[in-house]
């Protein structure tokens, strides 16, 4: 059965060109990059090239890019590294209610260890208010962490404006740009950010490799202590094949950014139009305009997300749901709750995220089938549709 993959926000297939550089590094470039002999030097060189590619994707200096094993590690490092470094200055952190768990759970952990955290609310479209941000800043505030774009509902936050406010107060500003990379132009020089997290597997690179941008000169504690790798900031023998692969993926993402964005936007709008026109009682979650080019997130009244997902999976369509029923938690999505959906609705979301190889026919197929699936599930629902 042909499968249609519409969960690019969860992870992306690895680009064949990326697989190629990765495999060749895996086979022929196994030296320890910290070693002085030939094998080590070759590895070191390929890492430097990849660092430059990733730097270019966000307009940073290569010396500001530090490879990590994931977006989650980059997030943990940014939050804990700044918190621990600035403990003497203050103990207050500002973030939002709609961050990825890598940020939220890290903040909650710090709350157990003497830090105070303000979780900014968002409006019904998922945007934070700059006014709220200004009011939340205290003299003990040492860090503001606000995501670039939300992974569930796709809303894009006003990062430049946030950066300006935070910078004026002399506070460190981190943004989780894991969903933004490859989907929105990113220019760290323009954005007033001090720290920015990215992850390769969202841009057709492999899983298990990410990076933290650290503005030159910013003091931050290490998260992983040990050897002198990554200019003494992140220990562990360098993951050469994945670093090289991330570099290639970043290069491709930069090169094709505009084409990809236009492609995704067209299909996303086709999908949103099809679903909202042909299915009644559906709600589009997230900001109508300020949203990721590939993200569509719907709530279908009276039915539950997991049932939709499974129905789609059976006919070959991979999507995802705010309801984390099967992934170990029964809580409704914290993001959907934050935009004001009642808990009932927050269980019923469907997220479809488009990628560079999605076709208009894929979208037609999905819409056609979704109409029937929703009808069938609603017919079974005890909740009255009137």
């Amino acid at each position, binding site marked *: 059965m042909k499968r249609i993959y519409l969960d690019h926000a969860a992870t992306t297939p690895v680009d064949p060109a990326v697989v190629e550089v990765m495999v060749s590094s895996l086979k022929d470039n196994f030296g320890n990059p910290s070693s*002085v002999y030939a094998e080590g*030097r070759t590895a*070191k*060189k390929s890492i430097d090239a990849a660092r430059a590619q990733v730097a270019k994707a966000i307009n940073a200096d290569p010396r500001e890019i530090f490879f990590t094993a994931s977006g989650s590690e980059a997030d943990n490092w940014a939050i804990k590294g700044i918190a621990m470094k600035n403990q003497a200055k203050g103990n207050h952190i500002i973030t939002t209610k709609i961050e990825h768990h890598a940020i939220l759970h890290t903040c909650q952990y710090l709350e157990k260890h003497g830090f105070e955290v303000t979780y900014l609310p968002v409006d019904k479209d998922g945007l934070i208010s700059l006014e709220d941000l200004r009011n939340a800043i205290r003299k003990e505030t040492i860090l503001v962490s606000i995501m670039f774009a939300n992974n569930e509902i796709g809303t894009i936050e006003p990062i430049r404006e946030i950066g300006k406010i935070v910078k004026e107060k002399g506070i460190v500003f981190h943004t989780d740009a894991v969903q933004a990379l490859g989907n929105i132009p990113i220019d760290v020089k323009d954005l007033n950010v001090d720290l920015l997290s990215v992850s390769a597997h969202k841009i057709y690179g492999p899983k298990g490799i990410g990076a933290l941008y650290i503005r030159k000169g910013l003091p931050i504690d290490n998260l992983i202590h040990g050897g002198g790798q990554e200019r003494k900031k992140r220990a562990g023998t360098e993951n050469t094949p994945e670093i090289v692969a991330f570099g290639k993926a970043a290069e491709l993402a930069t090169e094709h950014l505009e084409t990809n964005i236009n492609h995704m936007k067209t299909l996303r709008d086709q999908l949103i139009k099809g679903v909202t026109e042909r299915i009644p009682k559906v709600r589009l979650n997230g900001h109508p305009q300020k949203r990721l080019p590939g993200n569509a997130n719907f709530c279908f009244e009276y039915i539950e997300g997991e049932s939709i997902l499974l129905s789609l999976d059976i006919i070959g369509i991979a999507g995802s749901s705010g309801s984390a029923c099967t992934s170990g938690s029964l809580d409704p999505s914290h993001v959907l709750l934050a935009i004001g959906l009642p808990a009932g609705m927050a269980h019923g979301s469907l997220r479809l995220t488009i990628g560079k190889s999605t076709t208009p026919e894929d979208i037609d197929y999905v819409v056609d089938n979704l109409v029937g699936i929703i009808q069938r599930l609603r017919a079974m629902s005890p909740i009255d549709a009137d």
Partner: protein
Amino acid sequence: MPSPYNDIVLEHFKNPRNTGRIENPDGKATEGSPACGDMVSLYLMVDPETKIITDIKFESYGCASNIATGSIITELAKGKTIEEAKKITWKEASDALGGLPKIKAHCSVLAVEVLRSAILNYEEKHGLITSKEVTTEEIVRKRLKKVMNPIKGL
């Protein structure tokens, strides 16, 4: 850094010039770097009339760039007068090698220091220094500090 060392450095490492010892030298000195524990010795023969360095040899207990800078410093100094040789800087030595890795800058400082010390030793032995400065611990420390930290931040 594609390789820690460029081809010039490697060439001087593989085929160091002027290695060895001069018996009964006109001047000699040994310097060590507290930064890394490496050592280098240098031996001089000087023409009493012209004050030109006519022969020079070095020995190294050190890293590859210690050997290479020892080699280049002897090449740079040979044929120069002692006054000219004193003016050779670690930067010139490093440049003559086409550059050294940052962390290896002190190796060229060490080479320059040993050359200057050997010249000083020659001058002392030949009565060219009238008021000999007593080498106090402070002076040694001051000298070593430079060796450790030529361009800041080793």
